[in-house]
Every structure is written in structure tokens, then in C-alpha cells.
């Protein structure tokens, strides 16, 4: 039995990644618009990217809690990213979204990305509340959060310039050396994000307004060997964002079609007595 080939070796031989994907393939995405029918929120969306599951809810535009928070020119976007205690298998602590640095950073990035798209000037002196809950985390938490937030805002009917689509790209830990011509990977999972063999993996989440072709977020913490690499990674991530956009767009259109069909009474009616 010791001579048998391990599964990971077999995948490596056939140039596939540890979850069987091709280098430029994004993970399977599943999208659900308005999974929650609660009257106190105005929109919600559930997004799965592979094994990462994220739920976004939107409330608003509502009154600001304090006068001092009001902005006379535009709405204030309040973003909270929280993580369920069962979201990752490694870390079972309950992270407080107000004090946990990673969550604060994620909510900042999410806020910056969404502010680029929402037409905030239409609702002066009010507040739009966006809460993102990470239910399962297998890498790419921020990207999934951005995609879910876009759909939740759309479900709430809040005007936006465009979709915000996010996807990550990077180099695996073992190939971050300047001479290697390893393929860039798209939509990294947790194992690919983490460092292997002392070499930190390069990992760059990117968010895009796909129909205007505007980059609104690109974050990279690793040291890149040269500018060419940056370009390559950025291109790969942009391609990933476009693939994400196709999926989101189809989901949104399907959702709208079902809502309109339900209104004309042609399809099943969802009622509490069903």
C-alpha cells in the first residue's frame, strides 16, 4: 500500500489543483436572492463560492442612530462583517466583529468597494446598514462577501452604478520565486491561500465594476517578485470577476423573472400556509 499514489500527487501530475479545478477555473458558485423574508430588512442574499458560504442582509435607508453620524450630502454606509463560530474548522473562537482585526479589515474593504457603486447621494442624512455573516469559510471570504452584498443591495432596490464582482487570484506558495513560470491560480481556497513549506502564497482579492470595467479593490499582502507578476495576477483575477459576473447576472435575472411571474399569479404562491 505504501507504493500507491496519493490523490494530491495524481492531481498534480495532471496539472489540476488540490480540489480538482483547472488553474483558471473559479469554484462552483450557488446564489440565492432574498432567502430571508423578514419585514425588518429590505434585502438579503446567500452566496456560496465552493465551500465558503456568506449571507448578506441590507436594511435601509433608515435614520442615523445619532445626529452626529448624519451626512448632509449622502447616505452613510454601515458595514459589519461577522463570522459564525462554526465557520472554520481551525479557529473555533467567537470573533467579535467590533474588536477582531481581521473582521474590521474585511468590513473596511467591503465598505470601500460597495461605496464605489452605490448612489449614496440619493439618500442624504440617512443610513444604509449592511451586515455580512460568514457561515462557512474556506478561503475567499472577502470576495464572497462583496458578491453577496451586491445581490442583497439589489434585492433591497438600492440604486447602484453597477454590480460589484469580486474574485481572487494568486500564486501558490511553492512557486513565488522569480524564475518560476508557474500558472496563476484563480479563486483560491483556504489551502491555496495559506503558506506551504515556509513560502508565503501570493493572494490578491480583486473587485470590479464589470460593465464599466473599473477596478474598485485590489489587495495584496505578499511580496511580488516583479511587475510582470502583478500584471499576470491582476489579469487572472479580472477574468475571474467576469466569470463571477456572468453567474450573478443570470441569478439576478432569474430572480426577477420569478418575482414578476408570482405577481401575475401564474406560478406558485409562497404563503405561510403552504
Amino acid at each position, binding site marked *: 500500500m505504501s507504493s500507491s499514489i496519493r490523490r494530491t500527487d495524481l492531481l498534480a501530475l495532471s496539472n489540476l489543483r488540490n480540489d480538482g479545478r483547472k488553474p483558471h477555473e473559479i469554484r462552483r458558485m450557488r446564489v440565492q436572492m432574498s432567502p430571508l423574508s423578514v419585514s*425588518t430588512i*429590505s434585502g438579503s442574499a446567500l452566496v456560496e463560492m465552493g465551500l465558503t458560504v456568506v449571507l448578506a442582509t441590507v436594511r435601509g435607508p433608515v*435614520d442615523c442612530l445619532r445626529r452626529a453620524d448624519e451626512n448632509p450630502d449622502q447616505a452613510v454606509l454601515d458595514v459589519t462583517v461577522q463570522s459564525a463560530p462554526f465557520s472554520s474548522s481551525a479557529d473555533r473562537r467567537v470573533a467579535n466583529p467590533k474588536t477582531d482585526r481581521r473582521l474590521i479589515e474585511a468590513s473596511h474593504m467591503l465598505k470601500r468597494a460597495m461605496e464605489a457603486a452605490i448612489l449614496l447621494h440619493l439618500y442624504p442624512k*440617512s443610513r444604509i446598514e449592511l451586515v455580512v455573516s460568514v457561515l462557512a469559510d474556506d478561503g475567499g471570504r472577502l470576495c464572497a462577501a462583496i458578491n453577496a452584498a451586491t445581490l442583497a443591495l439589489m434585492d433591497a432596490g438600492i440604486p447602484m452604478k453597477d454590480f460589484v464582482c469580486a474574485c481572487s487570484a494568486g500564486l501558490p506558495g511553492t512557486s513565488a520565486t522569480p524564475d518560476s513560470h508557474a500558472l496563476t491560480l484563480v479563486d483560491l481556497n483556504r489551502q491555496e491561500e495559506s503558506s506551504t513549506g515556509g513560502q508565503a502564497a501570493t493572494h490578491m482579492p480583486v473587485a470590479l465594476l464589470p*460593465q464599466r470595467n473599473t477596478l474598485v479593490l485590489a489587495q495584496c499582502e505578499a511580496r511580488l517578485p516583479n511587475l510582470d507578476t502583478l500584471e499576470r495576477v491582476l489579469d487572472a483575477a479580472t477574468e475571474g470577476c467576469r466569470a463571477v459576473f456572468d453567474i450573478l447576472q443570470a441569478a439576478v435575472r432569474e430572480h426577477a423573472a*420569478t418575482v414578476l411571474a408570482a*405577481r401575475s*399569479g401564474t406560478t406558485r404562491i409562497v*404563503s405561510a400556509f403552504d
Partner: protein
Amino acid sequence: MSHDTISPSSSSSSVKHLVIPGQILAVSSLSDPNGQDSFLRGHGTYVEKTETEDRLVASVLGIVQRVNKLVSVESVSDGVYVGQVGDLVVGRITSVTSQRWKVRLIPHARDAALPLSGVHLPGGVQRMRTAQDSRDMRSYLQEGDLVSAEVHKTQQDGSLLLHTRSVRYGKLENGCIVTVPPKLIPRRKNHFTTILNQQFQVLWGCNGVIWMQRAMPDLEATGGPELVELQERRRVEHASMPLSPEERRNLARLRNAIECLRLVFCRVTQEAVEQVYETSLALNLNVSQMLVPVNVIRLTEPSRKAEG
């Protein structure tokens, strides 16, 4: 659910005009002096200017509507209530501050304000508001109370000021509310109606909240200054008199009739509600059976036909 393609069954005629945020709706080039292809920006759109042309882009998910040059997008989601002066609204008091009550008209939207100067206080219409009155605000209306009011003013930032300076407005007790999307309630001349053989009084709030209560027998109206007190007496009497089981059942039937219309997204008007109510009686349906999907379809058949 497949997300790769739009399922063919869901594509009907209305879906053709469905647009997503960021989709370009119209382009007008600046070099064209006649403005042949110009447009007017409506709700749900924004204009993006480039050096050579102006682009009209959708900002919400919805259906494109065009009236001559005005292009707008009607959102698929349940729309927010945009108040107009004179609208009847039904809301719940959420907080009491020094000079005003905050009234929640829609659960996920901004609260409206009901200033102390906008309510009738006992002891005459022209009475000054004293410091004592502002201390006693909770004795008139407190958190959780339902009120009917009229929109007095819309402020620059879109928030609403209300008033209840009429005998018809004020605290609501001993009845039932249903909430429907605001766009289902058309603006009418009269938003207070007594329907179904004078059985129920219904308040059609423009913010999508409908209040219903059993109709009280008319006390002899003498008019003049006593009218206010008469109305007040009637209100107190109604609030303190419990409903009989029969009245309660009828009220529940009325509530479910409105709920039926909401489920199929039909306009909630007096005629439509009465029709559903009568049909449910004719079909000998239990109150609880009314919301079973098959029955909802059956009951709302004429209303859906009328909507087209």
C-alpha cells in the same frame, strides 16, 4: 437551480424589458445639435457623461418604462414609500422626544416625525403648547401606539412631517392591521371608508398599512364644538368594548382577503377587497382556508384579470 442560463419557462413578455444595474439604456451624442436621440432621466436611472456622449444607465433591477423622452426603471423589489402632502398614513410610535413623536411608517425605512404642534390637545384647538404639554406627551401617545395621520410636509432630505389635527386622525385601538407594498395602494379621494354593509371601517394608509376595525353605530351628531368630544367618546367606547367572536371572525376574513390580494400583487382597493370577501363567503371557505395557495388563486381570479 441552474444559474448558467435563464430558464425558458420564466421568459414572458415583461421579462424582455428587464434591465440590471449598470446596463446602458440610451446614448445621446453631444455632436448631434437637434437632440434627436436625447432623453430625460427618470427614477432608477443615472446619467454618465463622457467627452462625446451622454449615457443613460439603469441603477436598479427592474422593468424599463418610457413615456416620450422620459426613461425610467420600475424596481422589481417592493419599492419605498415616497410621501406626498395630504397622504393618509398609518404608523407606529417608536420614540418620544422633547417636542415630537417619531412614527415608523415602514419597518425598514426612515421614521416620520409628528410634532407636538401637530396634534389636537384637549381644551381647544387654539391652545398654546406649554412645557407641561411636552412633559405629558406620553399620556397622549406612547411607544408602540398605532396612529393614523396626514402628511403635513415633506422636508428637503425626504423625511416627512405629520399632523393629526382632525377628528378623524389619532390613536388606533381594538382593530387589525395588514401591511402590503405601498405601490399596491392607489391614491384615492377618500382613504376612510366603511365597507361591506357598514360592517367595517377601513383606513387605507398610503404607506401600505391598512387598518380595519368594526364600524361603530353613529351617535347622534349635533355638529359644532361638540363634534370633537362626540368623536372622542365614540373612540373610547370602541376601544373599551371587546369584539364578539362573530365580529372577530369577520374581521379576520377581511384581513385575509387583503392578504390574498397582496400575495398575487393586485391593487388593494375597496372593490377588490369586497369582491374577494364575498367570493370567499360564496365558496363557503373557512377563514383559515383562504390563504391556501389554490384558494388564493381562485379568490383573486377577477382581480388578476382586471389588472391584466
